[in-house]
């Protein structure tokens, strides 16, 4: 089990840290800012610090879920290192050509490579 050090996120509280730790013990778990907010009370910025931290340390694969106006569900997923969806781009859901990036929205998602122990 790999270890992620609490010292990397100075602003996190004891309670947030303990609650978040429970989510990271399962290999393959999918974790995003919304889940961290609901289940551990983390603000979006703190959740991003945590997700970027485990990504930097190679403990998780990080990606952008891409949403389009046409659907409530993600219409694409891109690795974090591949960045945002370039436009113009044809949406695979509605098959319309997206030329305005304001039609797109994003969410982060981390998939754990292995259980992480919060140290």
């Amino acid at each position: 089990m790999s270890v992620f050090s609490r010292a990397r996120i100075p602003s996190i509280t004891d309670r947030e840290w303990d609650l978040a730790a429970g989510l990271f013990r399962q290999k393959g778990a999918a974790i995003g800012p919304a889940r961290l907010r609901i289940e551990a009370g983390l603000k979006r910025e703190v959740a991003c610090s945590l997700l970027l931290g485990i990504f930097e340390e190679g403990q998780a694969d990080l990606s952008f879920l891409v949403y389009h106006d046409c659907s409530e569900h993600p219409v694409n997923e891109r690795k974090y290192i591949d960045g945002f969806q370039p436009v113009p781009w044809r949406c695979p859901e509605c098959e319309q050509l997206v030329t305005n990036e304001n039609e797109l929205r994003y969410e982060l998602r981390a998939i754990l490579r292995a259980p992480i122990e919060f140290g």
Partner: protein
Amino acid sequence: MSGISKGDIARTLLAGILGLDGAKEATLCPALYTPDGRVGDYLAKMDPLVQLKRAGKLDSAQTQQLGYMLEELALLLFQGLEDVDVVKSYQSAGPQHDLLVSGSDSLWLCVCKLLRIEHFSGILIEAKAWSEKIGDNELQRLGSILAHHLGQTVGLGVFLTLEGASGFPAQGEQSLGLRHSRVTQLVIYHALKKPIVVLDWEDIMGLNEAGALITVLRRKIDEIEHMTGLPPALAGEPVEILLPERMRPLCSIKPPQPAP
């Protein structure tokens, strides 16, 4: 619809990096440069023209087309930097330059910080689709514009070229001597504290990846100070560890292994 806008998530990522102790600045690069979806098409159309030009087989109409396409590509590339809110094009009888991009929000400030631009100002880009390397005159002219005309608003000059600049090492070469426009580049940098960097066609071909424009510009800017005499690595390449042979076994960071 779920999710948040590109700008909002990029700003949240910036806040996340600022709240992460020991974070690597480069981690944010993919969120700060998104190549326009048309860049790939431009590169695919331009590359055969560049090869024809190198072979001396381009007619005048194709030469003009290539020049226009390089200017258009400059716009597509640099508007991909996050939070760009000023794009201006200039072409006058006096100082002539092609494109000025700038911004004012937090993400643009982060781009400037990564590019070591002082005073969080703009970038001036000039496209030169010449078959020969650009020389002293071009660097001096851009340096003069940076000093006298856009002194308060521009902190970085960029040439987009096909063949680079005279005196600069090509890929695979090391040139420890200072010659031609490389001297001018250094003089301007030390006088103004503003770098002027030169991208050649091989650099440009690597810019259709998230973050790549920032990575390449940063390596070019760093090279002005580091003076290794080596060309900066292309966008997708890891940076080589440059040490004398006797010191390499002591270095804990290993150079990349050549592909099998």
